[in-house]
């Protein structure tokens, strides 16, 4: 494979485009809302209208506003321009509506069907880098990704840069791990690159376990090649030749798309031996998880790839020194890897110009909960929570925001009075929450914060692997105390005991799951202590 061949594929793809383009969302959100039949309906309606020559139906990835799905976008006549002005996004399309939509698109008029205003803040305030191709390209066709500048960054890296230069570029961009903790990606890459280990591995962590988070799934379903390209570049930079993607078993569609993406990339010689006629070989295999939250922790994840129980082990040694089968291993999150290709293509300075001093680039969030616009968003770091919740999310219909929960069971609840906090790693940490992988759940006045804390503790209790005692026994005890408080049977002593336990579990647990499991309790105690105390007072009167 040569660069000229890539360009030829892109050219052919561009020429094959027809003036009118109808795109149907085929990500899991819309498919569960009957999107598959809508797509079939659209395809069936085209020849019936005798418009084969002028119109094409594309199965694209996530178009972000999941709560209004299935979404169908019509564009045209395109005439080669990237984003024609007459783009219409129809919401809640039913299979029966497809004929009318196709007819309208052919005649270049607006159909009598509710459409979404594309100039609303939900769309205009986003800054797509990771998601630039989501909903634009066809995830199941590699040609579509190549047309959108795909695999150019890999070519650039392999043919024009030394591995050390690639690592330097990533370090300079200031990219930080998007899995939650925010460890600088460049530093991690440099550590693995320096390791004398004979074999090295690159692992993509797609075990998105946080309830309420679906960013990684959407990326993998909508733009799988972007992640593969990022992995290949990472492998070249650190000197690995084998990669694994560890993906949740609960995401059958993403698994399917990845498998087909790996197959087609291999067929075109973009994975496998001697990529782009360089001495670089790289292969990727999938490893399918089996429903264990703790496997998102890197040492547990590696144990699971090796076919063992997903129990974490103490760090150090870090995976960079002693990873898979004892070899040096680089583990990055899906979103981190999806950022790699654009950084190389546009340069580290371009990437570093987005975001804040310490948190560069953008962050993808899965916005959900009691909010008007549920869906996938990508915003520059440093944007305030208020902008996300009120402008992009459209606020809570007929209600008031009480708290925003970030970081899943390891994170915390940020109360409404702190909504002006900028979204970056340090600011969120100072409020007792974390950036996390990107789940963001908005709660209103009807949600009882003690019950929310109990809900997360129940989750941690179930998911604790049982290896270390503070986590195994501590989560059970904390859950018991929270339940007692919720039931209005607790005394002030119980609350003090709970706080004590939180502190102990936080500081003595082995891995991230245990260390962060008290966070939801601590953050709700910090901002909503009165709710806990109210439940205690009720008990005092009763006795």
């Amino acid at each position, binding site marked *: 494979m040569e660069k000229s061949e890539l360009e030829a594929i892109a050219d052919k793809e561009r020429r094959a485009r027809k003036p009118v383009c109808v795109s149907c969302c085929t990500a*899991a*959100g819309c498919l*569960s*809302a009957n999107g598959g039949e809508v797509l079939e309906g659209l395809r069936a309606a085209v020849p019936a209208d005798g418009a084969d020559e002028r119109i094409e139906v594309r199965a694209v990835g996530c178009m972000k506003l*999941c*709560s209004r*799905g299935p979404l169908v976008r019509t564009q045209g006549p395109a005439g080669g321009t990237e984003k024609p002005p007459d783009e219409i996004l129809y919401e809640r399309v039913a299979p029966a509506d497809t004929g009318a939509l196709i007819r309208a698109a052919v005649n270049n008029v607006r159909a009598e069907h509710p459409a979404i205003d594309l100039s609303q803040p939900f769309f205009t305030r986003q800054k797509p880098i990771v998601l630039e191709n989501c909903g634009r390209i066809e995830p199941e066709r590699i040609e579509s990704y190549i047309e959108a500048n795909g695999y150019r960054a890999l070519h650039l890296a392999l043919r024009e840069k030394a591995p050390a230069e690639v690592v330097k570029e990533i370090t300079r961009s200031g990219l930080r791990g998007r899995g939650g903790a925010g460890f600088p990606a460049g530093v991690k890459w440099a550590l693995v690159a320096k390791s004398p280990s004979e074999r090295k591995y690159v692992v993509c962590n797609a075990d*998105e*376990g*946080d*309830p*309420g*988070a*679906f960013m990684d*799934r959407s990326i993998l379903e909508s733009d799988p090649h972007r992640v593969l390209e990022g992995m290949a570049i990472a492998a070249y930079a650190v000197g690995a030749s084998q990669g694994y993607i560890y993906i949740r*078993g*609960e*995401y059958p569609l993403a698994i399917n798309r990845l498998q087909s993406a790996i197959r087609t990339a291999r067929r075109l010689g973009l994975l496998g031996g001697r990529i782009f006629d360089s001495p670089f070989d790289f292969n990727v295999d999938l*490893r*399918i*998880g*089996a*429903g*264990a*939250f703790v496997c998102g922790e890197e040492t547990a994840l590696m144990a*699971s*790839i*090796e*076919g*063992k*129980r*997903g129990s974490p082990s103490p760090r150090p040694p870090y995976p960079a020194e002693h990873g898979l089968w004892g070899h040096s291993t680089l583990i990055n999150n899906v979103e981190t890897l999806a950022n790699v290709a654009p950084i190389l293509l546009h340069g580290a300075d371009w990437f570093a110009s987005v975001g804040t001093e310490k948190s560069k680039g953008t962050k993808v969030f*899965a916005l*959900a*909960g*009691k909010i008007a616009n*549920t*869906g996938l968003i990508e915003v520059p770091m440093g944007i305030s929570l208020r902008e996300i919740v009120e402008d992009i999310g459209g606020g809570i219909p007929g209600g008031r925001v009480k708290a925003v*929960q970030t970081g*899943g069971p390891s994170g915390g609840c940020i109360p409404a009075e702190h909504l002006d906090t900028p979204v970056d790693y340090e600011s969120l940490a100072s409020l007792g929450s974390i950036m996390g992988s990107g*789940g963001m*759940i908005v*709660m209103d006045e009807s*949600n009882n914060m003690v019950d*929310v804390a109990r*809900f*997360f503790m129940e*989750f941690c209790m179930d*998911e604790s*692997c049982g290896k270390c005692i503070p986590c195994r026994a501590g989560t059970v005890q904390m859950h018991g105390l929270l339940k007692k408080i919720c039931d209005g049977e607790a005394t002030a002593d119980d609350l003090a005991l709970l706080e004590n336990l939180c502190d102990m579990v936080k500081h003595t647990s082995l891995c991230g799951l245990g260390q962060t499991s008290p966070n939801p309790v601590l953050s709700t105690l910090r901002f909503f202590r009165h709710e806990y105390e109210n439940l205690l007072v009720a008990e005092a009167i009763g006795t």
Partner: protein
Amino acid sequence: MKKLRYQPDSLIEVLHSAQGLFGCLNNDLLLYVAHALKLPPSRVYGVATFYHFFTLEPRGRHTCTICMGTACYVKGAGALLAAVEQESGLKDGMSAEDGSLSLTTARCLGSCGLAPAVVYDGEVAGHQGPEDVLNKLKEWEADHGEE
């Protein structure tokens, strides 16, 4: 199935396909896998019981899975579960004695846009209320009655 590879580290993949074929992992199956991959049975049993995805007991004819992810929870998934538990007399993770129904919960399906979501026999349905779920269960019962 196991001709793919006999490497011990493919244990989880093998269990995935075994459960796909047989519906559940009984002791004989686990022993067979252990011998084939040259692993101690305790290790195979340990892995099979560690992961939520694997089940050692057969499932009912129909499966109703209620998403208990955060987004569904704040939108009332707890009430859905309570309604089904009351109606069917089952608890989360149990199957009815006559093998007609299994009730399970999920840790987020990633369909938060549709919250609260319920999976009926592998098909995701969004924006469910307690009545919707109970109606569906009655429908299943009626189907069975006709058979």
